């Protein structure tokens, strides 16, 4: 791509040559005035998110801690959870494959409503709250927190992956040992019963003799 870059750069060169690269860099940005009416926009530098998670991605069955800041003091905050499927694989990506090489068709999964589509939290005197939440579905969860009195609102996202697989054992490879074991247990039980019956007959027979 070097040649293309060079050619594109020629155009840029013209413009750069004609212009001050650094001029005006020090301009102060407008700062919101002190008046509160009408409501002023926030100051220009970006601030840390008002609603945060301790982990952006968890596995189903785990718990996330939500932390909200910048809400009104001692207020009730409503938190609404919406669920969307995790992003579909990009076009052209290989379909899911089983260990034997056969492919599995990926069908969209229906998302049942979360057990708690909304819940509440209470802020302390500094307008801060923390709340644990344990999702009951996989997917991309969006939490939107809104203060009842302050009206302040913030949102964040959480990805919930399928439960963590402790051992990479699939159903198929488990099936054979289960059947074999089950068969052995059944055979053992049968032989035990036969032994019992045999001994009983012996005893009965002995008594009859």
């Amino acid at each position, binding site marked *: *791509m*070097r*040649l*293309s*870059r*060079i*050619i*594109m*750069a*020629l*155009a*840029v*060169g*013209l*413009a*750069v*040559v*004609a*212009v*001050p*690269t*650094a*001029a*005006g*860099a*020090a*301009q102060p*940005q*407008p*700062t919101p005035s002190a008046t509160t009416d009408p409501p002023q*926009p*926030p*100051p*220009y*530098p*970006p*601030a*840390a*998110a008002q609603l*945060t*998670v*301790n*982990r*952006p*991605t968890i596995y189903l069955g785990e718990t996330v801690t939500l*932390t909200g800041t910048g809400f009104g003091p001692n207020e009730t905050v409503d938190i609404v959870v919406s669920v969307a499927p995790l*992003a579909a*694989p*990009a076009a*052209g*990506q290989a379909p*899911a494959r089983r260990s034997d090489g056969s492919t599995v068709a990926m069908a969209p999964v229906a998302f049942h409503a979360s057990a708690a589509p909304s819940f509440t939290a209470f802020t302390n005197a500094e307008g801060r709250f923390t709340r644990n939440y344990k999702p009951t579905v996989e997917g991309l969860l969006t939490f939107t927190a809104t203060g009842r009195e302050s009206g302040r609102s913030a*949102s*964040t*996202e959480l*990805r919930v*992956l*399928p439960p963590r*697989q402790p051992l*990479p054992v699939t159903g198929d490879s488990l099936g054979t040992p289960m059947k074999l074991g089950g068969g052995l247990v059944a055979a053992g039980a049968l032989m035990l019963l036969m032994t019992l019956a045999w001994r009983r007959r012996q005893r009965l027979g002995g008594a009859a003799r």
Partner: protein
Amino acid sequence: MVGSLLLLTGGWVGFRGWQARAHLLNAAGLARELSAQVVGGDTERAMRTLAALQEQAGAARTATADPGWQLARRTPIAGDDLDAVRLIAVAIDELARQAFPTLLRTDLTSLVPTEGRLDLARLTAVSAELARVDGAVQRTRRDLAAVPADRLVSQIRQALTDLRDEIDRLAGLTTAAVQGSRLLPPLLGARGARRYLLVSQNLAELRATGGMFGAYALIEAEKGQVRMGGQGSSASLGRFTPPLKLPPETRALWTDLPGIYPADVNLTPHFPTAAALYREMFRRKTGTTVDGVLAVDPVVLSYLLKATGPVMVPGGVPLASEKVVQTLLNESYQRLNTKQQDEYFAASAAAVFDAFFKKNVNSRVLLSVFDRAITERRILFWSARPEEQRTFGDSRMAGTLPEKDTVPTVGVFLNDGSGAKLGYYLRPAANVTVGDCRPDGRRELRLRVTLRSTAPKSGLTESVLGLGLAGDPYTVRTLVSVYSPAGGAVLDARLDGTETALGSGTDRRRQVATASVDVGPGAERALEVTILTAKSGAGQAELWLTPTASPWTTQVHSAPSCDQ
């Protein structure tokens, strides 16, 4: 009798094969050398190299064209190998005769603008020639792709693979060059005047694409002639309430800020979004609609000054390549008040402008300077015309955050949260380690980002310290946004070993986790992040980082692919 005849033919073919192999090896080496000379603009030496290459490639072709060879090609086992050697010889010969001579005639250095003007007629002629070269290269590429490689002996297979790679690179280059030379004339106003905004990114106050868009200049291009129009600062554009409409993902991550302040349009690393917002703000404020936005930074200027040599600025210090970033991003804030700063910047602009037209600029140095600046993503361009944007949308210059990765790419983007000009003192580092293959087909990546501040504990002016939102005005607050590979996820993050609160969202199929990191003067903080790729066994990883005033220290530890 028959035996000795066979032996003789075999011996002859073997001898010719050995000859062909020697010629081929020479030719391949020469081709590489030639390519470097073409890009370097060293025409005289390139001509000599080309002559030697043509001779070697021709000899290799002849050695594989005599009747003995033709006969041997039909033998069962050796035939395939000999066939491949012949095809490789023909391919290099075709390139030496069709593609390289035209590429050499096209003296790229003569295309550097002179007197603020680019020769559009010449450029159009070049475009037609490049299209012919591209055609020849693509043909060779197709022919080589048809050679069955799997049954060849390893030495020849390796030669074929190498050649295919080389020609793939060449083909990518010629295709892009054709596109570029087609695109340039309309961009420079060959079919009607064009207007662009040139913005300078102030690296002292970091934003994801580099720095805050501090100032702008209007550029007008007509028939290859480029003029500079009005200049202004982003602050003069004011703020926009109600805010401009944002892509929902951007709004979820950064609230309405990018739609309110021109200084915040590039909180997202996706340059097309930032450029489109800035253009719209400019239109609302001035009523002028521009055709595109071009962004550069003072580091680009430092590279350019390498080509011109130091430039004298009346009433100020001379601008030299080694010191310009420090002079512009730090000392000027320290020494001068706001009004003096404006005057100084305007004076340096004029001085640099003069230098470029009056000094004899070394065009070869200039070209390599641009190449470097674009590789480092310090020159970004967005066209408001979708059809033009599409043609170069995947080049590095477009600053497009791709929605799919070829190699899993982790992004680390910095935005200043202190409202100060302390970004100049940051020394960033990032290293990424490719980790375990997981049963679900994803792969774990471990990222470690460190930020060190070389800021002093006292003595900085109000211009530098700004709003001081981190509490202590000498502490720099940086919002570090970690972008997962496309389709991946960010699992967790620890700041100096303890779990930290993260803002979380999505940007163009990548999960984004943002941590707020305060670094006191002389201190260093480390953010460790665990990331998952999409389903990919790849053992490689790449980093995409915010270009900063002091370059990043980076390391990527790759691992074997999971499929092995």
